[in-house]
């Protein structure tokens, strides 16, 4: 008898690049970094690079990075990366065994499902998005999904981290682009950590750092990232190159530039904090050539995700990729298809992090009901990624023999057992069943999702912060606002 394929499960895997393709993209990236170079506005980064032997031109801030710099940084980055949760129950260890799903970011607007109004986001919107994420098992970490526009602009991102850590017990991935805010962010992180002490081995928040395409690193944002990396804060380097506008119009050209932007960021971070935890971002986009807007989705984004996820993995980095998001302005066929198809393909490429939940309009506005709908998509993606369990128990020949031709399997105890084990993914929000039932008592999935949001917000209890945590966070944000306004 032929045994089932080891290890008893066949799971789909998607691979776009072969060995030659990966090597070619890597070599062209090194050529770009060494030949064209990258502009580092940060004096500190330039000093580190110069001391390490790179060719630095202070006037243009241009740095040419030799291949060995990049190879060394790839080798020294800390791995595996732990994205700790403040309660210890929702840790995300990025060791390749699981894909953790997070929100999209960062929404200047919120589509309020209670009023139907699209308006500037507030701290309360961010808080609610965290509570919903906390309640949904399919969401593994929290992103800065809505900017608190009602907070002092100078400390908005810091307020965001505080709100996120307060309103969810899951790991928080935020934004911090001002080095002056770093000590306050660490105080906020400490206030949320067990015992009220910042633990560099268990960072409860991480930071998304974005190079400025093409091939530039902002001074303040990179300085902040370097300081945070030295304190054990994982840095997610997210290039937002737009093919055709801030990157070459071709997919291959954009992939190489995106890779170069991420790796040059990594070089600076590893020089500032050798061994610090780093996450590679396998995601890039195009500019829509009719409207001149950011196109988050579509076939090009799917191919970018696949290629870059594979490239990041080939370096041995944990990878963050994208899905769920859509350029659509409402919950509709377009939002479902774009977000769902990109999530499915990304999931099968098996990144460690997959973000994009809860937003519409090219990640410009938050929709809480979409979080619930996206969680349904996550479950379907996970079911596909799990694949087919393949062994004699699952083939069920013994049961087929017992039931025989003409019988049915509904009454077999194995049917119940396997259903409970998750053999079928049963939708919680999407509609199945007969048309008549739906006509008479069905609720459209968007309304159902909105009702689930309302129920979560009314009943879900988030694990409290350590004693005095909220007060410490408030004090840190106030102190930061005072210090910054004092200049």
């Amino acid at each position, binding site marked *: 008898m032929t045994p089932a394929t080891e290890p008893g499960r066949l799971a789909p895997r998607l691979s776009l690049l072969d060995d030659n393709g990966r090597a070619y993209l890597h070599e062209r990236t090194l050529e770009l970094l060494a030949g064209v170079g990258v502009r580092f506005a940060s004096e500190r980064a330039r000093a580190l690079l110069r001391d390490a032997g790179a060719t630095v031109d202070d006037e243009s801030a241009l740095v040419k990075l030799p291949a060995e710099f990049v190879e060394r940084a790839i080798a020294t980055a800390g791995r595996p990366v732990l994205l700790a949760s403040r309660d210890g129950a929702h840790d995300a260890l990025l060791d390749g065994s699981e894909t953790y799903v997070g929100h999209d970011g960062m929404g*200047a*607007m919120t589509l309020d499902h209670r009023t139907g109004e699209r308006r*500037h986001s507030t701290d309360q919107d961010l808080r609610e998005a965290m509570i919903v994420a906390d309640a949904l098992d399919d969401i593994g970490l929290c992103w800065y999904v809505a*900017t608190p*526009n009602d907070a002092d*602009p*100078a400390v*908005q*991102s810091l307020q965001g981290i505080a709100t996120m850590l307060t309103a969810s017990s899951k790991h928080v991935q935020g934004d911090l682009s001002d080095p002056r805010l770093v000590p306050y962010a660490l105080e906020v992180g400490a206030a949320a950590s067990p015992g009220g002490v910042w633990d560099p081995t268990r960072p409860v928040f991480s930071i998304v750092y974005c190079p*400025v395409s093409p091939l530039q690193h*902002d001074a303040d944002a990179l300085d902040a990232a370097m300081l945070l990396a030295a304190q054990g804060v994982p840095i997610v380097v997210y290039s937002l190159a*737009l093919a*055709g*506008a*801030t990157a070459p119009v071709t997919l291959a050209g954009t992939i190489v530039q995106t890779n170069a932007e991420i790796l040059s960021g990594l070089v600076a971070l590893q020089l500032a904090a050798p061994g610090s935890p780093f996450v590679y971002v396998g995601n890039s986009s195009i*500019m829509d*050539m*009719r*409207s*001149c*807007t*950011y196109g988050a989705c579509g076939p090009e984004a799917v191919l970018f995700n696949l290629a870059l996820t594979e490239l990041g993995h080939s370096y041995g980095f944990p990878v963050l990729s994208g899905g769920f998001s859509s350029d659509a302005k409402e919950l509709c066929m377009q939002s479902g298809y774009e977000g769902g198809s990109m999530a499915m393909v990304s999931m099968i490429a098996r990144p460690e992090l997959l973000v994009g939940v809860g937003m519409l309009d090219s990640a*410009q506005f938050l929709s809480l009901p979409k979080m619930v709908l996206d969680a349904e998509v996550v479950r379907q993606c996970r079911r596909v990624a799990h694949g087919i369990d393949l062994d004699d128990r699952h083939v069920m020949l013994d049961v087929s023999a017992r039931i025989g031709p003409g019988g049915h399997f509904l009454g077999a105890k194995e049917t119940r057992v396997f259903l409970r084990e998750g053999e079928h993914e049963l939708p919680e929000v999407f509609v199945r069943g007969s048309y008549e039932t739906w006509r008479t008592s069905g609720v459209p999935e968007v309304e159902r999702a909105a009702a689930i949001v309302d129920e979560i917000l009314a009943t879900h209890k988030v694990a409290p912060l350590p004693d005095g945590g909220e007060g410490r966070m408030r004090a840190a944000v106030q102190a930061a606002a005072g210090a910054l306004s004092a200049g």
Partner: protein
Amino acid sequence: MKDQLKEALIEGNAETVNALTQALLASGASAREILEGALLPGMEVVGERMRSGDCFIPEVLLSARTMQGALDLLKPHLAEGDSMSLGTVVIGTVEGDLHDIGKNLVGMMLQGAGFEVVNLGTGVTPAQFVASVTERKAAIIGMSALLTTTLPKMVQTIAALKEAGLREQVKVMIGGAPVTQAYADEIGADGYGANAAAAVDKAKALVRG
């Protein structure tokens, strides 16, 4: 020849546009005739195609750049005091913000439509915008922001214009991803463009009063 010039402009063929512009000038056509008989109608077509989604942004930019080259050729032939410009628009990305692609695109489209455009770049302070009203004789100030944290700079700039007693002399337009018509109304801006073509239409409407 004017029709050929118009077509060459729509195609963004700089070489042909320059040659035809010079040939028309040599044949005795006035700068204004060339502008109004060929170049502006050509850009109207480009703008129309952009609005209807029939051409891509890079094609629009090519035509706008080609138009600029032709205008440079026409300028020395203008009668004294005759201006081809619909007015001067001073544009800039507000202080604290580095994003400028959208703003630059709007600038090129405005130039293509016949405005004089002064691009102050990124990180422009309220004081710099205010100074531009007198120094550059701006008819319109166009402020852009991508970051929500920098939106308040738009409010500060409008306040600074009022303080300097210049608010009535200049129209204020704002744009950028987080900006909405409602926000423009809220802060007392005169116009908002949801995209580059809409910004040009709005600017034309504002200068025509």
